[in-house]
């Protein structure tokens, strides 16, 4: 059992969720409530990681943020180390890859709030900020929790993009899914089986939570 890889995976999942909670919510609210020209393209871009092979996504991320690109060089000049093959690079890839998993459940939840309920809050004197906290979030919380659970579960299980963008550096970019691959390659069946069982249980619980919340919202 590679405990370091498990801890790294959990850290990556926590950071991805921390970034995507505000960012995904911002995008989800925008998509839910502001019909505007080009929305279909914007939605398609957000959803792209769902259909794109992870290797393709990883390739483009490397092409954009690798050490030879100007973004990559600017990052290195600023921070002192390359973005690719680092935890930060991994986080960037994870955020991009998880965007649809974070945005879509929240978007559906915000879309379900009738427009006149929000308007009633404004007419009742509530600022947009108070409307968000007192009306929107309490009504959309199941969608927000679902999206975070999906993001965490998906980050812990992600493989292709992580390998492309992060490589396989123990303690830095080797996540649990890569560690499983590593153990299988090394014929260490016991460790691979243990880690796989752990991921299976974790994913099952996560999906059950998402469906449970979805049922709760449907009944509300």
């Amino acid at each position, binding site marked *: 059992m590679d405990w370091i890889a498990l801890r790294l995976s959990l850290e990556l999942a926590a950071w991805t969720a921390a970034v995507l909670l505000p960012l995904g919510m911002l995008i989800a609210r925008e998509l839910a409530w502001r019909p505007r020209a080009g929305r279909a393209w914007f939605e398609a871009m957000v959803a792209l990681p769902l259909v794109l092979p992870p290797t393709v996504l990883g390739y483009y991320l490397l092409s954009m943020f690798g050490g030879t690109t100007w973004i990559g060089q600017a990052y290195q000049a600023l921070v002192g180390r390359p973005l690719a093959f680092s935890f930060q690079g991994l986080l960037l890839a994870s955020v991009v890859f998880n965007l649809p998993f974070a945005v879509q459940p929240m978007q559906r939840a915000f879309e379900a709030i009738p427009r*006149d*309920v929000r308007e009633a809050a*404004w*007419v*009742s*004197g509530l*600022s947009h900020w108070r409307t968000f906290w007192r*009306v929107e979030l309490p009504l959309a919380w199941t969608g927000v929790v679902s999206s975070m659970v999906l993001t965490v579960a998906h980050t812990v299980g992600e493989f292709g993009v992580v390998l492309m963008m992060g490589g396989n550096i123990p303690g830095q970019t080797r996540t649990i899914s890569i560690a499983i691959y590593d153990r299988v390659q090394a014929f260490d069946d016991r460790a691979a089986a243990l880690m796989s069982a752990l991921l299976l249980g974790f994913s099952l619980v996560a999906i059950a939570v998402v469906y449970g919340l979805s049922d709760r919202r449907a009944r509300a």
Partner: protein
Amino acid sequence: MSEGLYARFEQSGPIPLATELRCAPGELVALVGPSGSGKSTILRGIAGLYRPRAGEVRCAGETWFDGVVDLSPQRRRCGLVFQNYALFPHLSALANVTLAAGHVPPGERDTRGRELLELANLAGLEARRPAQLSGGQQQRVALARALARDPQVLLLDEPFAAVDRVTRRKLQRELALLRKRVRIPIVLVTHDLDEARVLGDSMSILHHGHTLQCGSPVEVMTRPASAEVARLLDLGNLFEGVVREHRAERNRTLIGWGDYQLEAVHAPRLKPGDPVNWVIAPEYVVLHRRDRPSQGERENPVSGVVQDCVSLGETTSVSIRIGGRIGEQLAMNIATHHARRNKLAPGESITVTLLGEGIHLMPWGGRHAPPATDSA
């Protein structure tokens, strides 16, 4: 009017608007019109939820909108009851109300909320969520929430549309009582003419975003400004004729209607030879007694055949097909015992008087070619 509400909206699209509205404190103006006539848009414009291209909204001496000033809904002290109430589903009835009482010190909000719920006859139901309340109770919570802001104007968007008939009557009565306690302008959007007539001090008739007529319910119902208004109000006895001459000394204008010449209320704006529309309320149609003709029967006598008689309790509604080349249906209401005494039945020939004081002339606004001018 500086203490009341004044609203004017003008734009050619996307929702065409050409409307003006005045409502004094304590007054209730009913906005009436078919679906899509812009009633709710006007209400939203007043509340700041819709921004028209041009116009003006002033309330209690304060400018809320004039093209330069455009206060947010939060800064306009409006109480708005939405058509489907738009209650906060996750909050109790009390929390729905107290959330709107942000201007009240935190320690007093609860008391204020309870007072308003009591005023809305909801004492004891404070802890219930909207889903646990009936339609009528939800409407009352919505009204209490609208009042929680101590609004300068109360806007009601079809507030009785989603409740059953009995509850509607009860809620309408409660609104009438509430008006005595709350001295602010009230604008009621409705497509129900009876509701507008019963509750409104004045009515504003809207069609395609245009105000067609404003006035007291009696004035609008008996003296519609145009044939279009008469049609929107579903006034039954709407006919076409031609102006023949004015008799100003008798306060009458003579019109031709098929073979008949009728005396109508003087309408000096119309010129002899002009095609016109005219209406007469059923109560101005008087049956000639067959057994005892009287003097008054010389005024606009018209003959026809009874098409049907429908007894509606104490009143009987009679439909008469007018003879000659007119061939149109005329409706009248008479007391049921009167109908019985005169043995009114389908197929019977009768003569009625159209009281001149009840014949209201309007510029012609027919849907087809105007009636031919005659030389009679």
